[in-house]
């Protein structure tokens, strides 16, 4: 389908063709308020908003641009105004008596730009004196906008493939290709670490059913090898489901209607396999979406474990055999907003890193007060706004990384990793390598296999050479 270039991001042509958007937007907004749980929050925020502007001091985007439209409270007011005018008695009465604000196509365009300049990192929530969660407002506004087709095309096509496509995943990886990739990763583990580790498929009754960001199979070989290695050395019972192997849930970024379906598919696949727990890979938004399993998955929904929590538990129990040598490079940790902002996963990865790194340093601020990588809220998938992401949106993070002097930045999130790599490329941080936590774990796990001696390695090389000649 053709795309249109009206906004900073591409949308599908139908977003511009279908008329009467204000009426359709209001219908969608009304339905969301009626069936969702947002109405009370929106009403409270719209009443109490103090308009002090203190949120601006905590927003990395506003810090960089200084533009009025990037003040979180200003952006949220765009939706509050629609709410007050069309969904409160006072607003309706005032409009009948005195006229005033009317929702127009231009106003919808303004919202479509504003709510996609925000990464929904929710940092400003912690500085709002009345406690307005501007991230929630962005989340809600994007859902209403999506119902008039205003969705970045990059996210839309991914969700379409995941829910309606042949492959059933956002990266469109067919099952045979996935299996080939896993075989290749097993061979790599054998070649590099001399250990036999298989990626188990469709094992019934496994304790953990594994849902990484499916893009890891294309981009993060070391992370996935680290995941498998950790499960191997801890004797875990785990499996990858062939019916659904994608933890990504872009519904979180633009539509609860989609998020709900994706979460349910994950639960269905786990139940099909008789799995006991959902294990989410290194991905912030996939983890946060999976935390909605109890909301959407029904009373028998399986519990959700993030792989960082698993790694920490295993470390605490002394079940990860580690080599005596630690990672020598200077290492720092970037907190993915979706797992750190609410304080749910902040200490576990740090404890693991402190145990395996000789020179671990923090970036400041960190944990619940971290700065977003600049690619949050789905914006990292929108390639056409890269200059914006690695410029004004990400500059603060680039400065933070530079200040640590770290050679390795660990971020256990597929989206953050992609953004941070592009950020480093575009901000003269060429010497910085962005890795996952399991990438480093893989380097220090002691598999109990003796390191091959130099003569053995030479013999192996010769054998390989002979095979190559024979071939």
């Amino acid at each position, binding site marked *: 389908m053709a795309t249109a270039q009206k906004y900073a991001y591409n949308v599908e042509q139908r977003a511009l063709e279908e008329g009467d958007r204000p009426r359709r937007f209001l219908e969608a907004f009304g339905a969301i308020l009626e069936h969702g749980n947002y109405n009370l929050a929106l009403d409270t925020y719209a009443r109490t908003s*103090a308009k002090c502007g203190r949120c601006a001091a905590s927003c990395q985007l506003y810090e960089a641009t200084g533009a009025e439209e990037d003040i979180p409270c200003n952006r949220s007011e765009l939706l509050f105004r629609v709410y007050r005018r069309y969904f409160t008695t006072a607003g309706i009465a005032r409009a009948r008596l005195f006229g005033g604000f009317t929702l127009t196509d231009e106003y919808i365009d303004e919202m479509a730009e504003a709510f996609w300049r925000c990464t929904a990192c929710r940092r400003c929530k912690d500085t709002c004196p009345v406690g307005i969660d501007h991230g929630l407002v962005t989340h809600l506004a994007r859902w209403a906008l999506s119902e008039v087709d205003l969705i970045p095309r990059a996210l839309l096509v991914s*969700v379409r493939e995941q829910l309606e496509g042949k492959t059933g995943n956002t990266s469109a990886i067919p099952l045979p290709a996935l299996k080939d990739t896993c075989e290749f990763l097993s061979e790599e583990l054998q070649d590099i670490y001399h250990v036999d580790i298989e990626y188990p498929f469709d094992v019934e009754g496994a304790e953990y059913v594994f849902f990484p960001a499916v893009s890891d199979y294309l981009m993060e070989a070391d992370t996935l090898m680290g995941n498998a290695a950790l499960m191997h050395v801890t004797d875990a019972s785990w499996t990858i489901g062939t019916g659904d192997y994608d933890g990504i849930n872009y519904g979180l970024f633009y539509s609860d209607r989609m998020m709900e379906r994706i979460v349910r598919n994950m639960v269905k696949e786990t139940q099909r396999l008789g799995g006991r727990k959902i294990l989410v890979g290194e991905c912030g938004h996939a983890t946060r979406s999976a935390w909605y399993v109890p909301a959407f998955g029904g009373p028998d929904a399986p519990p959700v474990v993030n792989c960082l929590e698993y790694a920490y538990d295993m470390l605490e129990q002394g079940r990860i055999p580690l080599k005596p040598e630690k990672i020598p490079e200077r290492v720092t940790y970037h907190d993915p907003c979706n797992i750190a902002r609410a304080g749910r996963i902040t200490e576990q990865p740090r404890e693991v890193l402190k145990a395996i790194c000789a020179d671990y340093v923090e970036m400041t601020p960190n944990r619940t007060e971290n700065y977003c990588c600049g690619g949050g809220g789905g914006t990292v998938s929108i390639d056409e706004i890269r200059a914006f992401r690695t410029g004004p949106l990400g500059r603060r993070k680039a400065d933070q990384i530079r200040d640590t002097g770290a050679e390795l930045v660990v971020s256990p999130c597929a989206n953050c990793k992609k953004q941070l790599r592009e950020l480093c490329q575009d901000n003269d941080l060429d010497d910085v390598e962005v890795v996952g936590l399991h990438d480093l774990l893989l380097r220090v796990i002691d598999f109990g296999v003796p390191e091959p001696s130099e003569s053995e390695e030479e013999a192996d090389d010769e054998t390989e050479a002979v095979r190559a000649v024979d071939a």
Partner: protein
Amino acid sequence: MDAWLQLARGPLFWAALVFMLLGLGRHLVLTLWEGARAYRRAGDKDVPGRKIVADTVRWLVPTRTLRDRWPYSITTLLFHVGVILVPLFLAGHIALWKGALGFGWPALPNTVSTTLTLVVLAAAVAIVVQRVVVKESRVLSRFQDYAIPLLIAVAFGSGFMVMHPAWNPFGRDPTLLVHVLSGDLLLFLTPVTKLSHMVLLPLTQLVSQLAWHFPPDAGERVGVALGKESEPI
């Protein structure tokens, strides 16, 4: 003048007070009612009560938020201390309540009330000045954001002059009338302006958490309501 004063201190005051109490009570009841409904609809009933209480207390004791834009934060903090304490614990006000209700409560020493009044006056002016000077505040500000601190300044300034005739260039009664009328107006405006945060602020954290607790089929229902249940993505 006396008749105006009687009107302002009598029927107008009671009407404004009742309007405020009913309005704030309505906010409180509706918020709790809607909150309970949101909880019943939520698919995941595990609402982190302890975290909500901790966050709420942290917001009410704004130590963390003082770090960003500290001049503004300190100004507003001092402003709130005075605005809450003086009207409730001024000896003169308590004497009036005692006359009307038959009982009173301990009062602040007049020197403390006077000091707090001066703090409120200075803070109200500083808040308005900062709203004008600081770009982030200026671009957001509505009429009420300027009018309410100024109206509070009028109420406190006139109250100060009533208490300290030596500083009052006007007559006592006109000043008292301004004091009472501005107070009445503030009471009246409380439920219909951002002043309603006096009852809603302690509930914001709860309300936000409940919004993130989705009903299990909200998306599906929205799809049906919009006729999109079988529409391709």
